[in-house]
């Protein structure tokens, strides 16, 4: 039923993936079973350990979406400083790009 997808240079069969994932999950479950099962919920034993500091309130722990790839955006600042102003939001610029595209493709098709 689940056959091979031939791509001309190799093949991909989802059955292989399912077999690997089942084996992996089995090993994970076996390791999980060897854990400690006697602990008291709600006391000191289940709180996160932050080197003895207090746990901050919930709203401050969560990293917000806008800050997440700060390193990536800062490293490519030269590229982003040119790219983001191009998406200006002015409709006339959108149509100017349309016209530039027509002329460039026309020149390429005629010349080459």
């Amino acid at each position, binding site marked *: 039923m689940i056959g091979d997808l031939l791509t001309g240079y190799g093949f991909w069969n989802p059955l292989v993936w399912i077999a690997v994932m089942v084996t992996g999950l089995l090993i994970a479950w076996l390791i999980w079973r060897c854990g400690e099962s006697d602990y008291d919920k709600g006391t000191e034993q289940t709180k996160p350990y932050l080197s003895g500091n207090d746990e901050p309130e919930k709203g401050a722990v969560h990293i917000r979406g806008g800050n997440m790839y700060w390193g990536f955006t800062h490293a490519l600042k030269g590229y982003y400083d040119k790219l*983001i102003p191009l*998406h*200006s*939001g*002015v*409709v*006339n610029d959108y*149509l*100017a790009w349309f*016209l530039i595209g027509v002329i460039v493709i026309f020149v390429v098709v005629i010349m080459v």
Partner: protein
Amino acid sequence: MIANLPFIAVALLIGIALATILLKKNMIKMVMGLAMLEGAVNLFLVTLGYRENGIAPIFTNAPEGADMVLPTVQALTLTNIVIGVATTALMLVLVMVIYKKYGTVDADKMRRLKE
């Protein structure tokens, strides 16, 4: 040369319409430019069907051996006029809503959706 005059008019109209769309920042003027572009394409379509000394394409009581202008392009133009009416109406309604909510119809100022 006289026969090419409508095509030159089409080219001029398309040029003026594109210049209006690209350079004018007032939204109402841009909608006018789009209506002009549509009129130019309609003129182009009707001109394509013209035959020299042709009569209207009606078979009843047609004189013998007369050329007729092509009727298909006239149907295309009528359809395009109707589409143009609907498009212009919708665009003007959207411009009115933007004017009511933003207070301006300047393309440089209605840029809340950017980057």
